């Protein structure tokens, strides 16, 4: 049994302009200890997916369909009180911007200890000791002294470490990381990723890593799902996605990252912007931006299928390479004519 199984999740927001389907029928699963990446542009529905799993969708948003099975139990059927006991305890979250995620008026130590006190039956003293231990584990020097520092006395990287310490303090089974390194500079980013990777292995915690950065995914994840306009457009083991991207959108994303040894003068970009989710284009929502789009793409909505067989994707198959493009169901007249060039050492000599 997978640790987390999300089936046909639909989360909507009710805005003045109309209903926004921020997540529209997304399915995926994460095994124990697995590192699963969710990639996409801003507004693709990555964060909303995570918040749905955490049970933190606030009005005017609502999960309208699907199920979220955690250890076999549907989280959507849990009472608020039961969800509260799971949050921070079995499923924890690392936020994007540690500076705003920490409360400025309480000490860092207190913010770690309060989570421990909430979920574990420990005295205040024990909670404090465990919090200091956590600070040490995430690599804060002099943890006992730093315990009583306020967030503004920490550097950006240390703040993010503190946020990770909070998330891991109750030894969760699933850690949801929402763009954990976006607010950091590159050198600190590498350290934080390494730390996350290390700690997840130590604690045997599964990670759901949300990012728009394909480089980060390559570094950490086992499997990855690419999202576009609220839907999963490609799902694959991480190497396969990089060596053989199957969806034109994923190809576009790959083309837009700079690489060492690259002889291109300018980076390619995907023309256009992601559609307004109030008015998603008919058919494939990517077709207005897709270089291979044909007439049929504006009529028929592609389903996520196994790219080998063209059969509907099986969420339980971890090795499967699935994509939501009509090319794999035989609806396109032409082929997707792109080439993947793998850069090796020779390429840049």
């Amino acid at each position, binding site marked *: 049994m997978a640790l987390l199984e999300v089936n046909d999740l639909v989360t909507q927001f009710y805005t003045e302009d109309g209903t926004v389907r921020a997540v529209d029928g997304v399915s995926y699963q994460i095994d124990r200890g697995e590192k699963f990446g969710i990639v996409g542009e801003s507004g693709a529905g990555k964060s909303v997916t995570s918040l749905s799993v*955490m049970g*933190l969708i606030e009005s005017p948003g609502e999960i309208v369909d699907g199920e979220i099975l955690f250890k076999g139990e549907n989280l959507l059927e849990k009472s608020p009180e039961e969800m*509260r*006991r*799971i*949050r*921070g*305890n079995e499923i*924890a*979250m690392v*936020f994007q*911007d540690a500076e*705003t*995620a*920490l*409360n*400025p*008026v*309480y000490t860092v130590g207190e913010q770690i200890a*309060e*989570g421990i006190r*909430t*979920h574990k039956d420990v005295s205040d003293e024990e909670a404090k000791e465990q919090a200091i231990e956590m600070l040490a584990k995430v690599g804060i020097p002099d943890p006992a002294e730093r315990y009583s520092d*306020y967030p*503004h006395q920490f550097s950006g990287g240390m703040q993010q470490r503190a*946020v990770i310490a*909070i998330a891991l303090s109750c030894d969760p089974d699933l850690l949801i990381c929402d763009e954990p390194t976006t607010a950091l500079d590159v050198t600190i980013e590498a350290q934080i990723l390494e730390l996350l990777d290390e700690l997840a292995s130590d604690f045997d915690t599964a990670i759901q890593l949300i990012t728009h950065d394909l480089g980060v995914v390559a570094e950490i994840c086992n499997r990855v799902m690419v999202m576009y306009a609220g839907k999963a457009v490609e799902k694959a083991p991480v190497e396969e996605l990089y060596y053989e991207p199957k969806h034109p959108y994923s190809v576009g994303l790959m083309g837009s990252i700079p690489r060492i040894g690259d002889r291109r003068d300018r980076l390619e970009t995907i023309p256009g912007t992601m559609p307004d989710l109030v008015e998603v284009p008919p058919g494939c929502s990517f077709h207005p931006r897709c270089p291979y789009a044909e007439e049929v793409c504006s009529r028929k909505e592609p389903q996520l299928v196994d790219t080998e067989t063209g059969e509907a994707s099986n969420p339980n198959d971890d090795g499967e390479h699935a994509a939501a493009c009509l090319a794999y169901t035989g609806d396109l007249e032409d082929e997707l004519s792109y080439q993947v060039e793998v850069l090796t050492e020779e390429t840049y000599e």
Partner: protein
Amino acid sequence: MSLSRYIVKRILVSIPVLIGVTMVSFGLVQLIPGDPIEFILQFTNVSPEAEQRLYAKYNLDEPLWKQYLLWLQDVIVLDFGESIISGRDVAYEISTRLDHTIALGLFSWLIGLGVGIPTGIIAAVKRGTITDEVSRIAALLGIATPNFWLGLMLILVLSVNLGIFRAIPPDAPLFSVAKLKFLILPSVTIGTASASLIMRLVRSSMLQELNKEYVRMARAKGLSERTVIFKHVLRNSMIAVVTVAAIQIAFIINGSVVIEQVFSWPGLGRLLVRSISQRDFPIIQAGVLMTGVAIVIANLLADIVYSWLDPRIRY
């Protein structure tokens, strides 16, 4: 910087402000047309020499800067001189009324905070519901109603028609049941506007805080909604409220001058109003000085509370 060092620094900064307050307190009375000697002598005929002697007695013949320094010299040792009209010691005149004014002010202030903060929290948490709308209208009415009119209506309805409260204060010591019961109406009168204002402020600053990421983080930790609101959100929202609560002290002192008249409350406000019409300079100066000092102290306390609420301010 530690909290105690911050407090010492903040107290030192208040000293020049206090000197400014003494100058304004002394100088303000010079703006009123006429002087106390004219007031005393308005119905009598005295020789110019006798008039000169009177001016000299109260140092009113000296140049202004010298008058100020002479006055300041006495004020520093809490000698406020004697009333030109009654001849009584100003410090005594004020001290017999000060407790009444402080009691009225404190009660009004507590009503303002005691009603304003909880209703503000409720309105913010129940944003957009009928509760929020009702509290919005109540607050608007509370701010828009002139306090003297509210006081008169309360007397008319609750004292004159229903007889629940006395219309004038009982002749009893301040801390007696009868007198404290009487204090309810004037305190409500003054407290209404400040409760309304504080309620709206608490609501808006809570709503602002509720949208912040640390609130989501607190929820993601699995804290109860109670802890999220009362521990995390409230403390951050209070920073704005403390400023206004301190400024409210000035408004309450201000309001009490009028309301003490309406309720015949024997406080500083009534003494001041009478002294102004009599041009009784020493009393006016002492009264204004006291008020000014009270506001400076209130702001000082607000700053200290701030730095306790938000550690970033200390640095």
